[in-house]
C-alpha cells in the first residue's frame, strides 16, 4: 500500500513535470522568467518526503491552553471546574485577577506563569471550544 506522504510527494513531482512541459512551450526571449521557472521546478521536485503543504497550521493557543487540561479536563471540560464555553474576556479577566491575588493559591500561582499575550492567546483558543 502506498503511504499518503509518498502520494503527496508524487503529486508535487507531477505538478513539477507539468510546469516543466509548459516551460518548454514558452517562447524565446523570456530567458529570466524561464530560469526562475526552472528553479521552481527543481525546488518542487526536490521536496522532502515529509513536506506537505495541504494541511492548515494548528490553531494558535491550542498547545498553550492544553496546560489547563490536567485539572480542567480535556478541552476544558469535566475536571475540577468547567472552563469550556467561557468568553475571551471572562477567561482573560479571571486569570488577570488571579495574578494579583495577595495570598495566592495553586491556580493563582499557576496564572503568574503566563505573559499578558499568552493569556490572551489561550483565552482566545479556549473560547472557541464548544
Amino acid at each position, binding site marked *: 500500500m502506498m503511504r499518503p506522504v509518498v502520494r503527496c510527494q508524487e503529486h508535487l513531482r507531477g505538478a513539477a513535470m507539468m510546469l516543466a512541459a509548459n516551460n518548454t512551450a514558452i517562447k524565446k526571449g523570456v530567458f529570466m522568467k524561464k530560469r526562475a521557472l526552472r528553479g521552481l521546478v527543481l525546488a518542487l521536485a526536490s521536496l522532502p518526503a515529509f513536506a506537505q503543504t495541504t494541511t492548515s497550521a494548528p490553531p494558535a493557543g491550542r498547545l498553550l491552553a*492544553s496546560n489547563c487540561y490536567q485539572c480542567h479536563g480535556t478541552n476544558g471540560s469535566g475536571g475540577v471546574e468547567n472552563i469550556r464555553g467561557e468568553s475571551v474576556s471572562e477567561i482573560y479577566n479571571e486569570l488577570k485577577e488571579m495574578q494579583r491575588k495577595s495570598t495566592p*493559591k495553586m491556580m493563582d500561582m499557576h496564572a503568574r506563569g503566563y505573559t499578558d499575550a499568552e493569556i490572551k492567546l489561550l483565552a482566545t483558543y479556549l473560547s472557541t471550544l464548544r
Partner: protein
Amino acid sequence: MIKRRDFIKWVGTTGIGLAAGGYGMGALADEKKKRTSSTSSTSSASALTNTGISGRVVVIGGGMGGATVAKYLRLWGGIGVSVTLIERDASYTSNIMSNLVLNGSRAVSSLQYGYGNLSSRYGVKVVKGEVSSIDPVGRSVTVLGGVRYPYDRLVIAPGVDFDILPGLETAAAQAKVPHAWKAGPQTTALRNMITAMPTNGSGVFVMSIPAKPYRCPPGPYERACIVADWLNKNRPGSKVIVLDANPGITAEVNAFTAGFSLHGIEYRPNTTVLSVDTSTMTLHTNNVDVQGTVLNVIPPHRAGKVLAANGLADAGGRWSSVDVLSYESKVAPGIHIIGDAAATTQPKAGHIANQEAKICADAILRLLSGRAPDPSPHTNSACYSPITATTASWLTANFAYDPVSRSMVPVPASSGEATARSTGNFSEMNKWFTALMGDTFA
C-alpha cells in the same frame, strides 16, 4: 484454523482484549459511570476529523506520558495519523496516590487504568507486548514474537528503572526490602509489612531517598508522613527514620518540615545507602549503619531499560537527552523520549509527563506536515501531597521555554507551595487526581 477456545485465549492476551477488558477495576468502573453521566467531556473517536496530516507513530510505554501522547496525537492529528501503543501490561497502576495504599485508605485496584478508552474513543491501536528491538534507520519496532511495526515517528516513554544495590540482587532480597516506587504488588507488600509491625511500639520503619533526580520529588517525604501518621495512631511508640542522600528536603520544604515535626520523624540528610544486609535487616550507609523492622530502600533511578538497550541513554548513561521543543532525541532523529526517562530541567512526575506528551504530540504533527515545532511551549508541574490521612499540601510551577539555554525554566512568580496543610487541600487533591487521570486515559 483457530479454534474458538484458542481464539478467546488469544484475545485475552492481546490488545484486542484490552478494549473490552479491565472495566471490573475500580478506577475504570468510575470512569465508565462518569462517561455516561457527564456531558461530552471528551471527544469520541467518531468525532475525530481528517486534518490532512498523515503518518505512522508508534508509542512504547503506556504510562502517564505514553497514554497522553497517544491520545493527543489522534485528538489533534485526526484519522490520518495512525497511532500504535505498545505496552507490556494490561493496565497502568498510578504511582500518584499510591502512598495512600500504605495507610489503608486506598487499594491498588483503585489506581489501575486500562487502555480501552484510548482504543474505543481515539482509535489508538493498543498492542500488549514487549519490545525486542528498535531499528532507527529502517524506522520500525519489533516486539517479542516477531511482529514488526514500521513508524515515521517513534515515541518512547518507559518511565524509570532502578539500580540494584549490593545485597538486593536476588528476588528474595528485593521482596524483603521493597522500594514500592513503582506502584503495584510491592506497594501492597509494603502495606502488609507496616501492619505487621509490633504493637508494643518497638518497631522501626526505615526508608531511604536517592540523590536527585528521582521520580516525584515530594513523594518520599509524603510517604514518610503517611506511614508515621498511621504508626502513631495504630502502633504508638514505633519510630520512622528517613535517610536522605540529598543535603535537605528536595520539595515542599515548609510542608514536610512541619509534617516531620508533627509526626516525630527522624530525618538524616546526606545519608546514602551503600548496601543492604537482609539477614540482619541493616542498611550500610556513608554514615552509621541503621537497623529496622521494615526497610524501604528507594534505589537510585535510571531511564527504563529499553533506552539503554538501544543506545539512547546518552545523558550520563542513565537518561536520554532531548530537545524540549519536540522531545526528539539529541542522538536519534525520528525518536522522541518523554516523561521521567528524559533528561530535562523539569521534575520527573506524572503531571508534567502529561504536558511533555502534549508538546511532543503537537511537535510530531507539525513535523509530519512540514512545519517547525512551537517555539515557545509551557509545561506545568502541580501536585498535592497528603501530610496526614485527612490533610494535604500542594506544590506548583509553570515552566516556559528559554531560547538561550534551550531548556524549560520555571517562571519565578509561578513557583511555590501551600502555606499550610489543610483538609480543603486534601479534597482538592482527589479532584485533581481524577481530572489528571481523565486527561491521560479517558
